[in-house]
């Protein structure tokens, strides 16, 4: 579950960051031309991409049990486990997913920024080809 959730998060962060930097190419380049580093110039889109990647699991954690019954907990209860132990397991699972999502978003965001700029702090060619 951590892995599949991290997979979704990484996909979201990567595509969002790529699309945003492409769409706001001129803004990013204006930042760069004023002497900002790649990290500084992409900071606001970096933040929104990481945020975007973490939102689904946070929302899911908010409504767990109200909208979707978690499978593991329901299974344990059906199999005759005590309510309390099933609840504890599910809580650990949810907190684990939130933490895993944060790790994945952090790493994916940082690495994607690294890949979309050259070592000389220019946007890479394929991003610059986008009109904007």
């Amino acid at each position, binding site marked *: 579950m951590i*892995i*599949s959730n991290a997979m979704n998060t*990484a996909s979201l962060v990567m595509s969002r960051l790529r699309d945003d930097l492409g769409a706001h190419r001129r803004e990013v380049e204006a930042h760069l031309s004023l002497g900002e580093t790649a990290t500084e110039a992409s900071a606001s889109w970096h933040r929104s991409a990481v945020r975007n990647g973490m939102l689904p699991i946070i929302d899911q954690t908010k409504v767990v049990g109200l909208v979707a019954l978690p499978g593991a907990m329901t*299974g344990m209860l059906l199999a005759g486990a005590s309510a309390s132990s099933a609840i504890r397991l599910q809580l650990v699972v949810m907190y684990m997913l939130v933490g895993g999502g944060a790790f994945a978003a952090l*790493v994916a965001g940082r*690495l*994607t920024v690294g890949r979309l700029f050259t070592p000389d702090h220019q946007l890479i060619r*394929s991003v610059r080809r986008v009109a904007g």
Partner: protein
Amino acid sequence: MNDLSGQISWADVSLALLLVAVAMVISRVRRTGLEGDIAVASFRSFAQLLAVGFVLDFVFDGNSALTPVVLLVMIGTATLTSGGRGKRIPGAYWIAALSVSAAAGGTLGVLLALGIVPAVPAPPSRSGP
């Protein structure tokens, strides 16, 4: 054991396929062109769950040495799926692999370090999940 597992027969499973058929009919009527995808998804879920169910049962039955293999397959598949989404980013597969591994390693590391989950599953009684 009063779980549901003994109560659902393979005949019941095939009856549940009626729901898939309904989805395909809806897809056909609304011309979404998803019939092929639905068929592939149903077949894949069947094959994958069949295989994984037996593999997991085997691994949990005292063959926990295989756990790293299972984890590697999971991380590998996740990497391919997520990396495919980020095709326009150079090295997307590396980004996906590293972030998925960081998530899995980081969370499991914290859980193990704090002793929230034991590193080795309790073998004899299989009381826990």
